[in-house]
């Protein structure tokens, strides 16, 4: 049962990154590719109806993690205290940038909101990448299953890590570049004209960077956590995942160069899911490895909630997910296709 919940949480996190990823990515690039007010409004219109729903996946995944692995939630959230507080503040600023822009028509303030939206999106992408890097690298857990990391110590990977060291910084940059490409491909899908052209150009520039960084991060991971390959050796079927990652990168290039906008975006989705599933596969059955020694690691076994709760949860989780899927299909169908700005629309987009 704990294994099923491990998979469920991993999938929910992947869906969150996939969905909120494109609006984070769109935020990260919009300062550079959307130049006029009309273009900026088009970008916001492209994510406006869906970004909030996408962010709910963060809450739903967080809630599911809390419910299925309470000790993991308690330990990791208190240990990553400082970066999480900053994530909260960034999420706030970003929401203000998106939602309140259209209430204020003055040019000066629109620039202000656009900058907030852009900068907070970029920082969030880096933070999320670094967070994942921390989980893969391991944290200094004590015998009670708790730890606390300052933002940085000596930037080296060692027993007393900080949140940021050279490895997690690489992870942060990989996340940023991935989401930049992801967001650009999404915008290319949702827009036409010069905005579409520039979005595709950004995706073309960053694709080679993404390939290089993917390779670099994989090498760095094997160097920092050598046992990361254990599960792959044990269950060779796992190698499908890295193959999928490479395949999706190649297909992204192929589809993109043929102006298959949908195909390129889907390839980017596959890439993200592949990277995250690959990491989860390598971690299992650990959920938070200890840099202080494997006996302190948090696993699905020592963090899971009681059997009755997990069993009941599976029932309502399934119902809830089916409902959520229906809403999302409905919502995305409603706002499908390229964005057209409606003049004088009631919401001002």
């Amino acid at each position, binding site marked *: 049962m704990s294994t099923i919940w491990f998979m469920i949480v991993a999938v929910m996190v992947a869906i969150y990154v996939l969905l909120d990823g494109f609006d984070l990515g769109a935020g990260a690039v919009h300062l550079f590719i959307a130049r006029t007010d009309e273009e900026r409004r088009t970008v916001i219109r492209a994510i406006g109806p869906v970004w909030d729903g996408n962010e709910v996946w963060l809450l739903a995944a967080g809630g599911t993690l809390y419910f299925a692995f309470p000790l993991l939630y308690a330990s990791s959230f208190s240990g990553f205290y400082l970066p999480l507080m900053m994530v909260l503040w960034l999420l706030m600023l970003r929401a203000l940038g998106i939602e309140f822009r259209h209430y204020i028509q003055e040019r000066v303030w629109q620039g202000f909101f656009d900058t907030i939206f852009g900068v907070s999106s970029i920082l969030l992408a880096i933070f999320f990448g670094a967070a994942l890097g921390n989980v893969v690298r391991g944290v200094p857990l004590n015998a009670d299953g708790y730890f606390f990391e300052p933002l940085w110590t000596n930037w080296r990977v060692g027993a007393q890590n900080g949140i940021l060291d050279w490895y997690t910084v690489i992870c942060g940059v990989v996340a940023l570049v991935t989401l930049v490409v992801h967001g650009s491909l999404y915008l290319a899908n949702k827009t036409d004209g010069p905005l579409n052209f520039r979005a595709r150009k950004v995706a073309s520039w960053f694709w080679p960077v993404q390939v290089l960084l993917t390779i670099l991060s994989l090498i760095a991971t094997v160097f920092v956590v050598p046992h990361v390959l254990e599960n792959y050796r044990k269950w060779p079927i796992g190698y499908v995942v890295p193959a999928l990652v490479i395949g999706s990168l190649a297909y992204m290039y192929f589809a993109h160069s043929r102006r298959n906008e949908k195909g390129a975006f889907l390839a980017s989705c596959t890439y993200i899911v592949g990277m995250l599933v690959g990491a989860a596969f390598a971690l299992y059955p650990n959920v938070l490895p200890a840099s202080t020694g494997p006996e302190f690691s948090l696993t699905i076994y020592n963090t899971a909630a009681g059997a009755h709760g997990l069993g009941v949860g599976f029932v309502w989780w399934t119902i809830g997910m089916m409902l959520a899927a229906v809403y*999302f299909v409905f919502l995305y169908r409603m706002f499908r296709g390229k964005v057209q700005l409606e003049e004088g629309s009631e919401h001002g987009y």
Partner: protein
Amino acid sequence: MNSALLVHRLQFAFTVTYHYLFPQLTMGLAPLIVILKTLALKTKDERYDAAARFWAKIFGINFVIGVVTGIPMEFQFGTNWSHFSRFAGGVIGQTLAMEGLFAFFLESTFLGLFLYGEKRLSKGLHWFSALMVFLGSWMSGYFIIATDAWMQHPVGYERAANGSLQLTSFWALILNPWAWWQYAHNMSGAVITGTFVMTAVGAFYLLSEKHVEQGRIFVRVGVIVALFVSLLQIVPTGDAQGRMLARNQPVTLAAMEALWDTQPGAPLVILGQPDVAAQKIDNPLVIPKMLSFLTWRSWGAEVKGLNSVPKEDWPENIPLLYYTYHIMVGLGTIFIAVSAVATFLLWRRKLYQARWMMWVLLLMFPFPYIANTAGWMTAETGRQPWLVYGLLRTMDGYSKMVSAGNGWFSFLGFLGMYTVLSVLFLFLVRREIEQGPEPVLPPLPVEAIEMLDIPVEVR
């Protein structure tokens, strides 16, 4: 209290109090918007659509701030209260996760459709989105109340080998009787905020002679619903909560009433300042035997006093608890009086001309916020010194690994961030109220105006 515990408590108290200023309005406005949309659908009167659109904008601003200040609440269970989460997560993780899955998805999806989709959706579907937003926000409220109710009155759990609590009965958790009464009380409190805000904006328009027709709709819908929910707030919901307290948290009730000694025929304190050290009340104004009657339905019944339990089990801040409770009840009584007089004037068709009443209604809007906040402070300071009543003390629940220094860092950060949010919020809401509901150009036929109970001579 060591300084780390202090700052964790301060931060949670501040962020949750601030957060709840926004959901109480969105949960309160949601049913009112459904009423306006229903009236629009039934009467085919464009003015109700305009009214709904106006309130949807106010709703939207509140919703955004409610969401962004709500995410920290879920996070803080782990970041600041990790030991509590480890201890109780096996139970309350259920309700918190269900909120995300059932309420947030529903609410966010249909709010997107409601705010962005009026032109794309048919009238019926747009009404349906409003209904689903209402449903989503009210479900969200239920899951949170069920979580808090479990902390007040733990049910359906057992202690696992490692000392943490595990769920044994899902239905006991969901159908906790404490949750139902607390929910009913809380939701009618939220609707009181919604109605008084709507009425205040209407009164402001009538007083300043702008958007007069819309102002009348706001005042009319507002006061009628306000009277209804203000009554519900006292009977049965408030009354039932009081009786539940007497049975399950007698110390809390004793502290709320500053009742020191166990006694038959206990009085109800209306006014007076408690003096905890001397165990007395300065200049008390009491109704003899009333507390016994209200809690046990018998004038002579015995009510437990504070001295019936050791001091270490008393709520820590008895004066604060006493005052928040009395402020809540006092304001609740005023809400009934004001909405009753306003409804009477409406019935006599004198309301819109009564400028004094418009001033009263305008100035009333902050008080439901105060009453709701005071009510929550009563519930939460009343539960002290427990975090989970009878099972885990507050001083044992916080994150021991997060130092006071890191706690103050984030607490000050929240203070700064929320100041910015407040400035922006007030500015945006003022703009919306200034701009008002869009004018409806074609004037209505006289019959329609008569049907709507609006005297024709004014417009």
